[in-house]
């Protein structure tokens, strides 16, 4: 039932709004010309406070989440989100601080941001860090824009292409386009590494740079990364590091040392800030020698004992700002708490145990007869399976397996990505899961395969035990019912989103 269906005309959560209606409201607004006023009330529900609490508490229970389920979603690093990060970031002085309040009224907050910049510098092996990008993709945007600004600053304007491996995450090519570049795909070799020969062939004076994830989205470490860096740099291009997979090497290997010029971190992955059902994230960006001066503003600088913002004036070559203020401050606070709790040693252990868990699952699944996407390669913090053999033999797809896993109480791995691997499962257990959970997942995979052997319809019809059965997405995209409409309006095809009733006050 939708919240709108709980609505009754005139019902209100009275404690929540100023007591202002009717003539008093009109008086409050009397200096606003009538022609600029709204005529019809917007479609918002009229419900009581308890109805709201009950409705959204009930809805929440229909979600899988880290706090309730194993969530081995490859490329997403769904690890435990410490509850302390939440409560400490949500302290009233932090929540109440206006973004335009003077720096002097927020030294506690600014010191956290400064410290975080410093920590991320260490972690990445880069020279400077800007925290402002609001997600990984915005970090990528900043990085590629910086590469562009670099070439422009050197008058090197013939560089029109950005190279992206075919296995890359979709944000990489999309970002290159947003930065006005043409995208050229680099093929992946048999072994999961970039095809170095192919790369050599396409690199040239038109190459602005390359975007790489390492370990790659195939869950393997790009072993010839230094060679790749050499080839690209040789040609005058720069290297962008997509930090989505940093969990695999955190505290052990620094992207700066691999030869990258700029990178983002997905703090909502590696630094365990919550995914929030889709966001917010934080895509802090770090740059080395060549690119640091182009970093987006604002950044935090220290003057003696005081911290302040550095904006366009301090950093004249900056690509500029990516949001009205400073990005997702509250997310950054959470990441900072997490970083301080881990410390340097704890960071290294993240990589160690994320990698241990992934390799263990891979070994178990292989032992049970599932097919690794890249046999013979070590898993990084994640790995691929191909369910093509099962698809062929049993007529069940990766999607069927995924949906049936939900019935077993496991969130499905990432499916059909990377596309290179047919019927792909990209599995990332993360370091915070116990061995028992990994074993249980493997057992579920075996059990599901047995079900498929017995009766593939069990899988085709899955899920069976969730609030809904499998949804018809094709029909949904055709019907395109994107918002609820009041019955009378839906019937009369009335004007979008507004109710018939006029403002109570008019």
């Amino acid at each position, binding site marked *: 039932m939708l919240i709108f269906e709980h609505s009754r005309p005139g019902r209100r959560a009275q404690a929540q709004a100023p007591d202002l209606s009717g003539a008093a409201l009109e008086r409050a607004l009397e*200096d606003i010309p009538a022609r600029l006023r709204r005529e019809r009330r917007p479609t918002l529900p009229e419900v009581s406070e308890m109805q709201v609490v009950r409705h959204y*508490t009930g809805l929440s229970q229909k979600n899988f989440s880290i706090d309730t389920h194993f969530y081995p*979603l490859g490329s997403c690093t769904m690890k435990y989100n410490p509850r302390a990060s939440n409560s400490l970031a949500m302290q009233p002085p932090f*929540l109440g601080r206006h973004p335009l309040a003077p720096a002097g009224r927020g030294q506690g907050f600014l010191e956290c941001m400064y410290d975080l910049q410093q920590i991320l510098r260490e972690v990445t092996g880069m020279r400077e860090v800007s925290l402002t990008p609001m997600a990984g993709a915005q970090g990528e945007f900043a990085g590629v824009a910086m590469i562009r600004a670099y070439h422009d600053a050197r008058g090197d304007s013939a560089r029109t292409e950005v190279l992206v491996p075919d296995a890359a995450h979709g944000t990489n090519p999309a970002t290159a386009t947003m930065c006005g570049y043409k995208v050229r795909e680099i093929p992946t070799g048999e072994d999961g590494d970039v095809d170095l020969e192919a790369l050599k062939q396409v690199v040239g004076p038109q190459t602005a740079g390359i975007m790489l994830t390492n370990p790659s989205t195939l869950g393997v470490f790009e072993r010839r990364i230094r060679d790749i860096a050499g080839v690209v740099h040789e040609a005058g291009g720069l290297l962008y590091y997509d930090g989505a997979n940093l969990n695999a090497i955190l505290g052990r290997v*620094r992207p700066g040392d691999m030869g990258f010029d700029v990178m983002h971190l997905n703090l909502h992955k590696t630094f365990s800030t919550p995914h929030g059902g889709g966001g917010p994230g934080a895509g802090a960006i770090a740059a080395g020698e060549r690119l640091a001066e182009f970093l987006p503003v604002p950044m935090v600088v220290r003057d003696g004992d005081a911290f302040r913002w550095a904006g366009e004036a301090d950093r004249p070559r900056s690509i500029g700002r990516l949001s009205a203020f400073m990005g997702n401050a*509250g997310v950054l606070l959470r990441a900072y708490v997490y970083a301080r*709790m881990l410390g340097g040693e*704890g960071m290294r252990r993240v990589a160690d145990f994320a990698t241990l868990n992934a390799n263990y699952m891979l070994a178990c699944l292989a032992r049970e007869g599932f097919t690794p996407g890249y046999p013979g390669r070590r898993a990084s913090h994640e790995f691929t399976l191909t369910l093509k053999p099962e698809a062929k033999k049993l007529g069940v797809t990766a999607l069927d397996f995924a949906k049936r896993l939900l019935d077993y109480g496991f969130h499905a791995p990432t499916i059909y990505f990377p596309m290179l691997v047919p019927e792909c499962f990209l599995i990332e257990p993360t370091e915070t899961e116990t061995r028992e959970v990994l074993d249980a997942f493997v057992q579920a995979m075996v059990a599901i395969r047995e079900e498929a052997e017995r009766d593939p319809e069990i899988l085709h019809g899955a899920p069976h035990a969730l609030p809904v059965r499998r949804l018809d*997405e094709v029909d949904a995209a055709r019907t395109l019912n994107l918002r609820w409409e009041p019955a009378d309006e839906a019937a009369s095809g009335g004007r979008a989103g507004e109710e018939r009733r006029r403002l109570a006050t008019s």
Partner: protein
Amino acid sequence: MPFIPHTQQDIDQMLSVIGVDSIDALFDEIPGELQTGIDGVPEGLGEMAVTRLMEERAARDPRDLCFIGAGAYDHHIPAAVWQITTRGEYYSAYTPYQAEASQGNLQLIYEYQTMMAGLTGMEVSNASMYDGASALGEAALMAVRANRRSRSRRILMPTTVNPLYRRTAEVIVGNQGITFEPLDYDPATGTIDSGSLPTDPGDVAALVIPQPNFFGALEDVDALTDWAHDQGALVIAVVNPTAMAVLSAPGSWGAEGADIVCGEGQPLGIPLSSGGPYYGFMCCRKSHLRQLPGRLVARAVDADGRDGYTLTLQAREQHIRRSKATSNICTNQGLMVTASTIYMALLGADGLAAVAGRSHANTRALVEKLTALPGVERAFGGAYFHEAVLRLPRPAGEVLEALAERGILGGCRLAGDYPELGEALLVSATERRTGADLDRYAAALAEVLA
């Protein structure tokens, strides 16, 4: 090893299943010279120690009385909003790619889309962008793609649009050869100078119309919308969502309504929080739907004929369309949408109108009190909504500093972006400010100016 559950026995047994004898061996594909480790990161702290640290940091930041708006508003947030939003099932879920395991979140987004479409008077809302400023950049890109009547990459951008939005949007569109052409404002009203609208603007992709504008002043949205449509340009509305409870919705502007609506969602239940996380909202006509960036949820039917909800039109997005996607956005600001949806459900249309009304009345009362002081006067004469520009008889920077020492954040200084306004201050008083608060501001300002 905070957060890592492995016992030594686990480790030993797992390594033996893998067939290696140490965790280090699992990194054998990584060139040794790259495995430098890190130093310089401070030692790990237990939760108790980090709590102490963060409480001390927070305690250093005073809780001042806030009269700054300028794009972020200090509204009351019902206690229920964040107590529900931080429930693990919302807080720690991923993007609802597996629809059947994410019905709670998907239904909530569908409700959100309905609410935002309702507020803006548009047919469609997406599931959020990063923030208001970046949403404006995306709206500009979208307008260029969506305008079938024009191949222009020029967009008319009034200087009454929040300067931080303009700068952000420029960064976002700049690399694609899209340009913003400024439109001046009328110094008497602080609104777009309709006299200065070019009679023949040439081929233009879109006109941006802010409502209220950055000065709090109210634009003549109907006339501007009709003018833009006459030129073959699309209209991008940038609006304050609280204002939408009482101001004419972009869907009703002029004869045809705006084409794209975006803005900052923060006023709807999101804490000020030093500027983020907030979220950008984005709505449009259904006919432009395929150019809309960001996620979309649709109602769907399951195998048993039951209603459910799912992400839809993913072919617009980067993970399907890659370099041809409508945007590179992936992670959005989902949890903020959860909070805002709960906020809007709690407030309803009447409640939101009351918030708007009280905020406006408070601001008007503040303006009256402050302009009663010698040398303080309104910069513009026209109508405004819950925010206004004052001219001061002393340098605004100094005044603000003196007010801050008294625990008052007196407003946003405009000299940087609008030197022509002199010592001007943008002030706002939300419904949270009491009469006593306004008096306190007036008394402090009197003292400072004395």
